[in-house]
């Protein structure tokens, strides 16, 4: 994927960061911040929450990179942290639904998916109505450039499961596009 190719960090930079080199971590942060931020935004469907989570990802990465092993797959590692943070966030949000304070958190409705597909960003928003674990598989494949084996490793699931989950999201999005255009006719 073009997106994936644009994000490349030399292994020596990773090694330097692992040894505590500030400039090296800075380079990693600059390189991956947009990719992680965009991924999280599409996964959680809320820019402000995604911004918070992006912070969490890099602070955790900063705290933990010194403990990682040589040969670290940096991109996969960062996406693992990001995905775990997003899913944890989503669980918290579900608990907080006991007593919603306001409507700041988007309330997605699966039935309304087809009404949200007028443009690209609306397709992204529609995706947020789907299970986060499934969307993560789709985004990691379609936008992150990961193979299903790599996605399975990131999410701790079999590669076949990762493929099925991504497949279901793509199906749902295609259904939504079809339903919307058929309805418009």
């Amino acid at each position, binding site marked *: 994927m073009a997106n994936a190719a644009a994000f490349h960090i030399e292994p020596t930079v990773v090694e330097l960061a692992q040894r505590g080199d500030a400039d090296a971590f800075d380079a990693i942060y600059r390189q991956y911040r*947009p990719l992680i931020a965009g991924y999280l935004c599409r996964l959680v469907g809320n820019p402000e929450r995604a911004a918070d989570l992006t912070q969490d990802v890099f602070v955790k990465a900063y705290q933990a990179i010194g403990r990682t092993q040589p040969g670290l797959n940096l991109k996969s590692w960062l996406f693992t942290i990001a995905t775990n943070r997003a899913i944890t966030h989503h669980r918290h949000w579900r608990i907080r639904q006991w007593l919603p304070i306001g409507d700041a958190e988007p309330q997605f409705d699966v039935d309304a998916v087809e009404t949200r597909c007028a443009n690209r960003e609306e397709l992204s928003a529609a995706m947020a109505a789907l299970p986060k674990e499934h969307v993560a598989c789709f985004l990691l494949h379609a936008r992150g450039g990961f193979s299903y084996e790599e996605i399975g490793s990131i999410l701790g699931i079999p590669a076949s499961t990762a493929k099925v989950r991504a497949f279901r999201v*793509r199906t749902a*999005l295609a259904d939504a596009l079809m339903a919307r255009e058929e309805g418009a006719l």
Partner: protein
Amino acid sequence: MKCDRSERIEELLQSYSLGEVSAEERRQVEDHLADCSRCRDRLFYLQRVNRIVAAWPTVPDSMLATLPSIDAGVRRRIREPRRSFPFGIGVWSLAGTTAAALLVGLIVLALIVTLPRMQEATPAGPKPSPSSVQDLLAEARAKPRPTSGRAHFDITIKGQERASSFDILISIDTEWSGQSARSTQAIQGVPSADILLRGGVPERQEAISIDGKTYVNSGNGWRLSTSAEPSFIGLIPEMPTVAQLLDEFSPSNIKLAGNRRVQGVECDVISFTLDSDKLAGLTSLFQYASESPQFANSLVLSGFEGEIALDSDHNLRELVLKTQGQSADTPTGWGNLTYTLTVVDIDSPTIVIRTPHGAVTPTPTAAASSVPAVDTRAFVEQMREAPKPEIRSIRSRREVQLASSAGGQFTTSAITIDSELAGNDVRCVVETRGLASSDDPRSITEAIIKGDTTYQKNTLGQWTAVPGRGKSSVETLAGLNAFNGIPDLLVSAPTLSYGGQREVKGVTCEVFGLAMEGPIPPDILATVGSDVDGRGYFTDKTVTSIAGEVAVAAHDKTIRQARFKVTSASTAHPEERFDYVFIYTFWDLNDPNIAIEAPDMDGGATPLATDDGRATLQALLDNPRPAITSLRVIREDTTIFTLGGQPTITSRTIEAEANAGQAHWKHVLHDPSPTRSSVDWEVIADGDTYYTRELRDGAQWQVSPQASTGGYDPRAVLRAASPIEVLLLLSSSIHYAGRRDYDGVTCDVIAFASGAVMPRDVLDVPASSLSDEEFFGDKTIERVDAEVAIAAVDLTLRRARFTITGHRTTNPSDCFERTIVFTFRDYNDPNIIIGVPVVGGGKPTPTPRPMNTPSAATATP
């Protein structure tokens, strides 16, 4: 290829659209597409999805505006480094950070540097022969349980039950004399489901056991308990002795494991193992574990590993027991438990246990037969009919705990909502915890609904405004549906009992117990859940029982506290169980000081008060404060210092207690340096007589002139309530920082930051003094940050924290950060009575005697 629009066809089309098919599959798909218009249409939309997704910008347009906040947030949070090197020389330049951040960042390095030195300083002693172990144990066996002393218990329980993990630390500080004991228990961490199912456990609880009675304080004042609660009080008389361990538990593999210091006392360490079938015999040690299904029933234990540490007089100084097990029910279930008992102040003369001060009320169950007969039904009818004050403002706390087995997974969670309501506006802090997430088990959200706008605070501490008032009414958020509905609930309860009186937030209340079985009407459920119609909790559930208690203010018949335990199951899947605990507390009804203001959208402090803090302080000073006749103060002082590029950490703790005629304080230094210059010591002042001794093995008490106490008069502890004035002197950047709870006491918090201003001469009282000429004499102070917490109820100081950063005047590269935290507690507690030691005793004989027998009015509330 037949087109039945199966998942297989869809999968092939998707793979084809992505170019992820083999040559054979490609041929099959293209052959099929030639004949199937439906699949051609489908492929069209799949390709459109692919094109749209591929064309997405890396960062969505909607997120571009937040990118600067990410940089700012990461920069701010990374300034609290946890690693041995400070990141931030690149984008996050160190130039803007303080020396404090650097020094904090060096903590880990300092530990790494000093650890080997510490290990070298306490080498293992010469390996004794096995017979010497037996000699040691024989001497220790002859030691009776100390007649008085202080001990600290730490019990950690970690594990996994089904899909829910739990990680709990139970800390118990106790002091005992004879069969009397006073203990404080604190629980931290993620509780297990069974604790929640049993109704929850207060995070902090005190107990006094004396004359066969047990008094309990869970934050709402002392009450008398005749039941077995709290179980932790039973740990004291059951504290094991070496003889008990040897006789009852038959340890094996006994061997000497070297020497180490325990609480500053050099000890011989003996290791041993116990068989796993000893769990039942260790019930007194494992109060919690034995009550927990994981440890009592579900786990197959693999045995105990243990250690005891004996001082040179063969007193038991430390006992450590560890065990672990695998679940017998679920292959992934496991648990481990560590029990640590540390004994300090053996046979201390300073320990006297007295009945608690303050209103002591019987528990509902205990009091049922002792309180005057009350016509319960008539009372609740009167309560329902009594005219109620119109609620214009109120403060409330709403706690909901849930243990569920939905989906075959046991999960626990909890939510707490602290609210202030004024008119139609509300401010609330929502805290969730107990989720099965190890990295972030707790989250806090703050929100204000004012007018037609909802404000929420994000994790950066910035407020965001959202149009509209959200989905929850202010009545729901503040629990007013419960407040208003409980009188009807009590009247309709088939089982109702009167439980006597107790205080809730200083208000005397009548307590009623209630129970309901079987189908519960929807209006009752709505009241219990404080929902408009109960849909939030029970819409898809069948509630089988409700049990609880309600405290009603005696003077105005309003509800002040209610606890309900609700047992329910999924209506569709009855095997899925949902057990809730609801606790509501209401106070400050119609308090005119409750005002809800829109937040500072620039990210400032929550505007509980409209002034900048100075006026609040002045108001506090203008109001009368109680005369202080007794007090306990703990001072924790930590300094991180780079000396010649070498980081060191020194911490010291001073614990002090004083009454009108006596004082006792103890100084303990934790200095990793092998050339420590300070000796730990304690002082007792009794009238004009001063007793001192060093805290080392074999030290004797001696009568000393005041000068040898370091020049301090320990009784000046009682003057420690003056630091409020400090802030007025240093109020260059003072601000009001809202309310927080410390030790269960609601406090107003005032914070300030200053330039090179040092309040050293203002707080010039021993245990709370910041004066330290020896340290500060050659230093230049760069910054002082501080905050004080003042009890809302009586304006006494409860906590003060000062963080002082700077450098050595003659060598600016030697930086320091010093944090001093004072905790003030037990104001005017008549239990603070200090015995007089026996002079010249190596191990002083306990001779506690009450010096200021309280008057009947204070001793017996």
